[in-house]
C-alpha cells in the first residue's frame, strides 16, 4: 500500500520533471531557432541585396538601397562582361585552376603513396619539410618566389602560376592523402603484385581507384582554395591578359572610383559568385562529408 503511494509519488514527480524538461526544451529550441535565423538572415540578405542591386541603375542604387529596380536592367550584365573583361578572366581562372588541380592531385597522390606505403631513408625528413611548408606564411616566401619565377622566365605567365599553385597546394594534398593511403588494406596491393602488376600498374589501376573518395574530398577543397586564391596571382601574375577572376574583380572594383557604374559592379559580383554557388549546391553533401573525413581519418 505505502509502496504504491511512493510509486505514484515518483510517477507524478517524474511527470512534473518531464513537463519541466519539455518546456525548457521548447524555450531552448525557440532561442536557438531565433539566433540561427538571425544568423541566416545576416548571411543571406547581403547576397540577395547584391542580386537585386545588380539590376538597378547607378542612380537608383545611390538614391535608395531598398528600392526595387524600375526596369530590370539586364544590360548591367553585358556591360560588366565587356567592361570588366570577366569573360577573359573567367577563362584564365578555369585554365589555371583546372591544370593546377589536375597536377596537384596526381603529384600529391604519388608523393603521399610513396611516403605512406614505402620505407626508405629520408622519408621522415621529407614529411617534416612538407609540414614546414604548410606552416609558414606565404608572405615569407612571396618576394623570393617572385624572383625565382623571373629567373625561370615564368613570371606573369599562366604556367608559372599553375606551378606555384601546385607547389603550395602540394603539402595539404599530400597530408590528407597520406593518411588515406595508410588506411588502405595491404591484401589487394599484394594480390595485384602476385598477379604480375608492376609498381606503376599497382598504383594507377589498383591503389588510386581505391583512394578515390579521399581524392574527391581533397579535390573539392583544392578547387575552392585555388579558385579563390588572391595573393599569388596579384603578386606573380601582373600581365593583364593573364589575370584570373579574383584579381580582375579587385581591379574592376578599384576602377569604380574613376568610372562609376555600380549596377555593373554588382552584376560582375553576381557573375563571379554564381558558378561557385552552383558547384557548392551540387557538391554540398559531399563537402560536409569530406570535412568530417578530414577530421577523423
Amino acid at each position: 500500500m505505502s509502496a504504491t503511494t511512493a510509486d505514484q509519488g515518483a510517477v507524478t514527480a517524474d511527470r512534473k520533471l518531464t513537463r519541466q524538461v519539455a518546456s525548457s526544451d521548447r524555450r531552448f529550441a525557440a532561442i536557438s531557432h531565433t539566433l540561427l535565423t538571425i544568423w541566416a538572415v545576416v548571411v543571406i540578405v547581403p547576397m540577395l541585396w547584391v542580386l537585386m542591386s545588380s539590376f538597378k541603375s547607378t542612380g537608383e542604387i545611390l538614391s535608395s538601397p531598398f528600392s526595387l529596380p524600375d526596369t530590370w536592367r539586364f544590360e548591367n550584365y553585358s556591360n560588366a562582361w565587356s567592361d570588366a573583361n570577366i569573360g577573359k578572366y573567367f577563362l584564365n581562372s578555369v585554365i589555371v585552376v583546372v591544370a593546377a588541380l589536375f597536377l596537384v592531385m596526381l603529384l600529391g597522390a604519388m608523393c603521399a603513396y610513396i611516403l605512406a606505403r614505402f620505407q626508405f631513408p629520408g622519408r621522415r625528413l621529407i614529411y617534416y619539410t612538407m609540414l614546414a611548408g604548410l606552416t609558414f606564411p606565404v608572405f615569407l616566401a612571396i618576394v623570393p618566389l617572385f624572383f625565382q619565377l623571373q629567373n625561370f622566365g615564368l613570371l606573369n605567365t599562366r604556367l608559372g602560376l599553375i606551378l606555384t599553385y601546385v607547389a603550395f597546394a602540394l603539402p595539404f594534398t599530400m597530408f590528407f592523402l597520406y593518411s588515406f593511403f595508410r588506411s588502405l588494406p595491404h591484401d589487394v596491393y599484394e594480390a595485384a603484385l602476385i598477379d604480375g602488376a608492376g609498381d606503376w600498374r599497382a598504383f594507377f589501376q589498383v591503389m588510386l581507384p581505391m583512394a578515390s573518395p579521399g581524392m574527391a574530398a581533397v579535390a573539392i577543397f583544392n578547387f575552392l582554395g585555388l579558385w579563390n586564391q588572391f595573393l599569388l596571382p596579384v603578386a606573380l601574375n601582373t600581365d593583364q591578359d593573364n589575370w584570373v577572376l579574383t584579381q580582375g574583380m579587385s581591379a574592376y572594383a578599384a576602377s569604380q572610383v574613376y568610372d562609376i557604374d555600380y549596377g555593373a559592379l554588382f552584376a560582375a559580383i553576381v557573375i563571379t559568385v554564381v558558378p561557385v554557388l552552383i558547384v557548392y549546391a551540387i557538391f554540398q553533401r559531399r563537402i560536409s562529408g569530406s570535412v568530417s573525413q578530414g577530421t577523423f581519418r
Partner: protein
Amino acid sequence: MSDTITKTEATGGRLTSAARGGRPRRRKLTFDRVTFFLAFLGIPLTIFVLFVLMPFVQAIFWAMTDWRGYSPDYNFIGFDNFIKMFEDEVFLKALRNVALLAAVVPFVTLTLALGVAVAITLGGPSKGPVRGIGGASFYRVISFFPYVVPAIIVGLIWAQMFDPNAGLVNGFLTRTGLDGFEAFAWLGEVSTAMPSLMFVFVWGLVGFYAVLFIAAIKGVPAELYEAARIDGAGRFRTTLSVTLPSIRDSVQTAYIYLGIAALDAFVYVQALLPNGGPANSTLTISQQLFTTAFRKGQFGYATAMGVVLAVVTLVFAALVFAVNRLTGGGEDKKVKGPRRKAPPAGVEQGALPAGAEGGAR
C-alpha cells in the same frame, strides 16, 4: 639509396610476400621500380623545393640585405632591416593591428561556430536519442555559404554594404530610426574601421568552422552525452564539460589556422580598406610588405617583414599549443598512438582548415 628502398620496404610495416620468402622477384631492383621512385618522389619534390622550400630559405638570407631587386648589387647588412622596422611607426602600427586581429577574430569566430555547431548537433529535445534541432541541415547549408564565395568578393560585397550613402547597413539603421547613422562612414572612421573589418572576417569564416565542429561533435560517442544527461548536466554545462574537451584538438587546429588567417588578412583588407584605413587603423603587415616590395622595390626590407610575420605566426601557434597544454589537453590524447606521435595526428586534423584557407594559401 634504391638498394635500401627494397630492403626496408620489405621490413617496414607488414611483411610483404617477398619478405615472407614468397617471391624473390620483388627484391630485385627492376627498371620499373627505379623509374617509379624517380617519378613519384622526384617530380613532386622538385616542384616543392623550387617553388616553396627555396624561396623560404632565400627569404632568411635576403632579409639581411639591402637588396632592391632589379640590380644584382646588394650589401649584407645583418639585422639593420629589423632595427629599422622597429623604429618605423607605421610598421609598428601594422604589427599592433594584426596582433589585435589575431586576438579577437579566432576567439569570436570559434565561439560563434561552436554555438552554431552545438545547436545543430545537440540542440534537440533532451528526451530520446541525442539529436540536433529541427531544420539543422538548412542552417548548416546556409552558414557554409560565405565560405564558398571568394574572399575578395566577400570583401567587395561588404564594402558596398558599408557604403555611407547607398549601403544597406546604414539604410537599415536609418530606417529603424537611428538617424545618427545617415551617411556614417563605417570604414572611414578610426573607431569603426577595425571592428567592421573583424565583422567581415567572422562573417566569411564562421560557417566553415561550424561545419568542421559539427563533424567533430558527431565523432564524440553519444554515451558521453547520455551519461552527462543522467548526471543532470544542463546544455551549457554539457557543452563546456563534455563537448569542448572532446573536440579540443579540432579547436586547437582551428584556432591556429584562424590565427594565421587573421595575421595575414591580406584579401579582406585589400577589398575593404586598400589604403590601410583611416589613420592606418587597419593597416596590416601583409599590406605593408606588399607595398614595400612591389611598389617601392625595397625587396630586402620587405623580406625582413615577412620574417617578422613568420615569427609572429609561430609565436601565436606556440601560445595556442601552450594554452591547450596548460588547460589539460594535448598530452594524454596524443600518447594514444605511440607509433606515430603528435605531428602526424595533428597534421591529419590540421591539414583540412589549411587547405580551406586555400589549397595554396
